[in-house]
């Protein structure tokens, strides 16, 4: 099985996607991540292990704990991760353009 397929399988799991979403905004310890799920701690650990093995998560030691954070570089390889960001702005600007084309000064 090639690595690329592994990565896609990694993000196909709802819990792992939820984990990626959590750590997008901040690095979190395994305990803090697990606290967000009903699953048993070992189950969450297994998910973290898979995501780390696929390089989607980076581990950062902090004192006695290990913090997990998203590996934006790897996400970029999986899919063009800038595209949703770009289309968010594109949608906004399209709205601006449509709005201002219809704009009538009130004065």
């Amino acid at each position, binding site marked *: 099985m090639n690595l690329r397929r592994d990565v896609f399988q990694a993000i*196909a799991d709802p819990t792992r996607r939820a984990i990626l979403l959590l750590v997008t*905004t901040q690095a979190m310890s395994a305990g803090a991540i697990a606290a967000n799920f009903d699953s048993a701690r070992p189950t969450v650990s297994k998910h973290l292990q898979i995501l780390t093995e696929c390089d989607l998560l980076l581990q950062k030691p902090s004192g006695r704990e290990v913090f997990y954070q998203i590996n934006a570089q790897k996400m970029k390889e999986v899919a063009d991760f800038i595209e*949703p*960001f770009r289309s968010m702005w594109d949608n906004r600007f399209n709205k601006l353009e449509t709005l201002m084309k219809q*704009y009538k000064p009130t004065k």
Partner: protein
Amino acid sequence: MESKTKISAEEGKQELWIKREFDISLELLFLAYQEPNLVEQWMGTKVIKLESKKYGIFQYETTDPKGNKHGFSGVIHEFVPNKKITRTFEMENSVFPVQLEYLEFEKLSDTKSRLNMQIIFKSVEFRNQLMALPFAFGLNMAHNRIEEIYKK
């Protein structure tokens, strides 16, 4: 249809460029940034405060599908009508540090204009994380669709 919005984020740099050409005049484009009720309509956020002037404050608020409120705010440092806006931008109650935004408005013709937006972040890491946000949210919301594709 080709998308008119271009994003450029060079490897290893803590900045980001957003460029867009509009089929509206420079004056209309600038007005869309200046008037609170217009900002509200195209940004899709509630505008609590927008003082379009030097050292003016702006405060926006959005409500997510779960009903949680998210605040965005900043201070305007330069406000030159039809030319530029320089401001800080901050996502309240988030781990993201304040970012600096340079907005330049350009006239291309009487009915065309361009916006160049440069955003400077505290670190490369924060820039990448911010750009990954819509991707991660998209993953979560569109998970059923992704599942269908990858289970084949």
